[in-house]
């Protein structure tokens, strides 16, 4: 079993700009679901905690979800309780695998399995468990570190060379993921900065298999496929667990027309330039299709300008506040 995550010790979750853009995009897209008759206010949000509870606050404020369960396994019980922003959030201090059996099959969920580690068999089991427990029309989102990682073999692996690590990783991935993809996982295939496309194939196939076994005509109606990096490269996939009929309803409601919706393997790269508040305001007041890097009052290359143009609505602004 994977060890509990403690990445919150390294980051304030609220100020990872790409992550924050991702959250806002998710909310924007999910706000389209009510047009298809999905009453998100009645959903239960299931997410992993950190003492910052950013997702919980945002999903409550913007999606109006009131039933929330935070599963957290790190050894910070008092801190988690102390920082709980709303009384209605139920804190479950256990691994997700222990919580899944208690989930009610009749309840629609918004589940965000937001891991800070790379894809592994334990994560696939979590996905499988959630898919077997959530009611139809639930939303499942999965985020993982997109870097290829060798299995945790303890102290002896630390001194190994990059080549050995790649060989170890390829061997582990063949054993873990080989059954989900139609080609052999070679060392070359994983000798890269990130392996989001490989993870995509594995996760999507596993979801397909699980839902086929579950029956009821359920399928994964994908809406999210994001890639971003605030430090480590991260990959997110998400969608609605629904039938062909549900797919039609969502299509008619225009959910798939949102520019950030991704229904296939090509991911949306979320990348935002670091800007000062003055730069942001300057750009916002002049942003139109004709604005080019050459016309800016400060240095910013064309690519970063394009990224800003794409995500200016979701761009987070941070200021120090003296409380």
């Amino acid at each position: 079993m994977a060890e509990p995550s403690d990445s919150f010790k390294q980051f304030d979750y609220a100020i990872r700009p790409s992550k924050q853009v991702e959250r806002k995009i998710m909310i924007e897209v999910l706000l389209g679901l009510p047009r298809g008759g999905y009453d998100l206010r009645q959903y239960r949000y299931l997410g992993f905690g950190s003492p910052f509870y950013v997702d919980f606050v945002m999903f409550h404020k913007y999606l109006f979800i009131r039933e929330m369960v935070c599963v957290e396994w790190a050894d910070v019980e008092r801190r988690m309780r102390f920082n709980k922003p709303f009384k209605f959030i139920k804190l479950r201090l256990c691994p997700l695998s222990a919580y899944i059996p208690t989930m009610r099959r009749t309840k629609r969920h918004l589940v965000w399995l937001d891991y800070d580690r790379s894809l592994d068999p334990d994560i696939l089991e979590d996905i499988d468990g959630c898919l077997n427990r959530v009611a139809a029309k639930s939303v499942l989102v999965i985020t993982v570190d997109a870097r290829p990682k060798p299995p945790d073999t303890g102290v002896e692996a630390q001194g190994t060379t990059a080549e050995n690590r790649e060989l170890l990783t390829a061997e582990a991935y063949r054993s873990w993921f080989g059954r989900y993809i139609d080609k052999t996982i070679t060392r070359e295939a994983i000798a890269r900065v990130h392996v989001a496309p490989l993870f995509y194939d594995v996760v999507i196939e596993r979801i397909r298999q699980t839902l086929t076994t579950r029956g009821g005509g359920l399928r994964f109606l994908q809406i999210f496929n994001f890639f971003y990096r605030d430090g480590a490269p991260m990959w997110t996939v998400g969608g609605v667990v629904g039938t062909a009929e549900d797919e039609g309803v969502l299509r008619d409601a225009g959910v798939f027309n949102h520019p950030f919706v991704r229904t296939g393997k090509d991911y949306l790269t979320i990348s935002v330039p670091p800007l000062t508040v003055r730069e942001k305001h300057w750009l916002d007041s002049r942003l139109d299709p004709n604005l080019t890097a050459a016309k800016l009052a400060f240095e910013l290359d064309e690519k970063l300008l394009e990224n800003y143009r794409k995500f200016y609505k979701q761009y987070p602004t941070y200021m120090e506040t003296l409380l």
Partner: protein
Amino acid sequence: MSTPPVAKAHPSKAFFIHMITRDLSLSDCILDLVDNSIHRLITKSGVDVSEHLFGGTKARRIDAVIDIAFTPSKLSVTDDCGGISIEEAKEQVFLLGNPVQDKSQTGLGVYGIGMKRAFFKIGNQISIVSHTTDEEFKIDIDVKEWEKETDEWHFPFTYARQKESTTGRTQIQVSELHAAVSDQFVSKAFKNILLEKISTAYALFLKAGLNIKVSGDDANADIPELAESKHLRAVRQMIKKDGVDILIMAGLSPAADKKPRGWYVFCNGRMVLDADKTERTGWGTDSRPMFHAKFNHFLGYLYLRSNDVQKLPWTTTKEGVDRESPIYQTALTEMWLLSRPVLNFLNELYSDVKEQSEPEHSLFREAKPVPPQRIASRENTAFKATVKRQSDDDLVSIQYRRPKKQLNRIRELLGRRRSGSSIGEYTFDWYYDRNCK
């Protein structure tokens, strides 16, 4: 226009007599005869062993005996399980394969092949004598003669008549045994193998009162117990799907139980998988772990019950499961979803850093054996393992090995006669005082 030709598709007696008998062992064939006896018990007297599982001691006890006896020249299976009526014998019992299933009863009879396959596997002369409370019949089969009559697909009655009796009984005798069968009946080990198989396959029936004898010795129920305590509790979950009750229980076998466990699968009370550690119960499939020595104490039960026997994932040999069965697929998903916390606990129990798992070991050692019936008869519960985490002030043991020569050298320098552990403590403290304070 001429009539299109037809392709022949009639059955062959040789197939039943010589071929499908290869699919299972002699002991499994005898279990097929026991299955038949138990099936009669269920259909005649409404015995439902599930009641013993779910209702505990309140359920009606089974009062019946199945007596198996064999010599190098003869096998007999006698039971007082209600007997076979003349009508049943004429229309149903001797058919080679069930044409239509009666969906109104629970039981063990599924495919309508086991008893006949057992006859053919064991010998050439078969005699079936049975009586209910008001009639009796006898059928004698000479297999070699029957095989010659290729178009005769029936067995003539030796007699069939009215007769008053207080109970129903059936006796099957097989003689003119095949040479390989005689050889096995001579072997002393065979009786023990058979007793062992019966003790597990019919464990729930034996627990409920059924008496099965093998050449004079009673079979004793062999069903492993789960370990429980106030802080350690097995998962118990009952779900219903498509007319099938699916009961799943999983936890740890007691520390004193040294037999590697795994999954035990039952269909209508009959065990069809015993301590399974293979892909049949999901080990090593998808992203699930392979069975490993650290999971030796994993103990899971899958109990399936249905009045429609066709819905259960039996195989014709009752020694496995039909993995494609939708009910089994559902059960498999639930089994693994519910038992993941158990496996996680075992991973912690046998973690690489032994000192860290002492609280888990203590919890495990203190748990007491509990019969699965007691867990089955309670409400649904999740797996619970409340581990008392060590505080930073708790003491931990450190063990390591170093060459004796080096230890003696330190002993010399310290100038005092010290034990190995005392030197270990001294050197630890020496490092800590200089680097950690």
